């Protein structure tokens, strides 16, 4: 199980029941902790619905009590190819 974190301005950004695009950062221990990926995913407030866990912070860094499970469908590469 992976642990992820997302920053949102509004909890409405985490719509359930459909694919959403978000930037999430890994909370897995190790030297890459807190690095980001931009992904297409599904989230659910039912914690055992999806394999990974998602923690939420608000726009100024406040930790939200709300918890989600998350399924990362794919990583979306936004980076133009000339910078790869």
């Amino acid at each position, binding site marked *: 199980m992976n642990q992820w974190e997302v920053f949102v301005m509004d909890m409405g950004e985490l719509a359930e029941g459909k694919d959403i695009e978000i930037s999430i950062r890994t909370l897995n221990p*190790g030297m890459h902790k807190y690095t980001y990926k931009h992904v297409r995913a599904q989230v659910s407030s039912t914690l055992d619905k999806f394999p990974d866990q998602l923690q939420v912070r608000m726009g100024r860094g*406040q930790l939200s009590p709300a918890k989600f499970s998350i399924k990362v469908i794919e990583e979306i590469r936004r980076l133009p190819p000339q*910078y790869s």
Partner: protein
Amino acid sequence: MSKISAPRSNREFIEACVKAGDAVRIKQEVDWENEAGAIVRRACELGAAAPFMEKIKDYPGFSYFGAPLSTYRRMAISLGMDPASSLPEIGKEYLKRTNSEPIAPVVIDRKDAPCKENILLGADVDLCKLPVPLVHDGDGGRYVGTWHAVVTKHPVRGDVNWGMYRQMMFDSRTMSGAVFPFSDLGKQLSEYYLPRGISCPFATAIGLSPLAAMAACAPSPIPEPELVGMLSGEPARLVKCETNDLEVPADAEIIIEGEICPDYKVEEGPFGEYTGYRTSPRDFRVTFRVNCITYRNNATMTISNMGVPQDEGQLLRSFSLGLELEKLLRSQGIPVTGVYMHPRSTHHMMIVGVKPAYTGIAQQIAQLAFGSKLGPWFHMVMVVDDQTDIYNWDEVYHAFCTRCHPENGIHIYRNTTGTPLYPFATPHERKYSIGSKVLFDCLWPVDWDKTNDVPTLVSFKNVYPKDIQERVLSNWTAYGYPAVK
């Protein structure tokens, strides 16, 4: 100029601070995740010695140096002065050196440059190989650049810019940072690179000599490599980058080379800021793609932990903004006695002492201050007369509360340049960097009769004859009072 013996590298500076009792060596292991940041923050809030953390969890061979210039004592050490020097003495020395002849930097061979001892290129490039700290819990990421210089160069004019633009690690090869449109780099990007869709080469230098960091932080019109030479009394040593034509401080601990992407942005923030708050919204900001990392053996990463006063962001920025405004006002022939920003104002209030020579002098000062390139960084100017000690907040506050007319003395300037970092700004103002400014004119009006209209200041110094003052002072302990320092 007499010989200056200022520390020429971050390492020499740490040694000088330890020797003076202004840095402590922390031998036990410190976690890069929050613990190091918390140590630095507490040191700032206590005005304590700078922490030199010699062992970092997960990163053997690296160290941290926190709060490098968060006290005037360490600022004096950085200039090669007595640590006990007073603020006016330090300011006078800064003005003397920065009004001297420019000293051009020298470019040395890469084999002599300590920052080239380790070089990561290609698939080896990974920012996570550096001990990038999570400075505050809840920050949007680990911050690579908190006390550093982002080096860029205008491709046509050749202007070199070293600026302290915060940089967050987004992924192993990407950083994002807050570069405001009114900053030197912001102007360079909007004027040249963004319209052409061309990437801008950059190099981030971390673990600079304290005077190189001071130059990167100062809003001076003098190119930073020359300013470093003027401050230290000898040429700055630079070396060419591995992957672009920029030149970077050869003695820096870490160099990150890459390009600023004109067509790609990732999120940055939130971050604990110099105002003492997390204010600016998380947003898509200027994005830096990393192509190369070089670093010294046993490299030391410098950490500034911005928050409530006082940290070096507030202290050094207040110091240099005030003195650069003093230079500007003197260049216009305005009879100022001095300019001072108290660091606890989080460099928001400029206090100007002036001989009230003519009507409207306070407004002239405010217009020059707000209209200059320094202006976006503060929103209050308070003008007091030449009898008020600008460094003595009790005197300044008394002048403000008693001489500033609520209608005639307060002047508001609307729709000026602002920053998203202003805590008082509305969400709309933050989003569009809309500012507003205020002048507090604490001068007696020039058209008041000096004998009958201007109130007499009732103080020990002002109302008693000299002989009475001397008698009271010489008998003070005889009256039974303890001696006054």
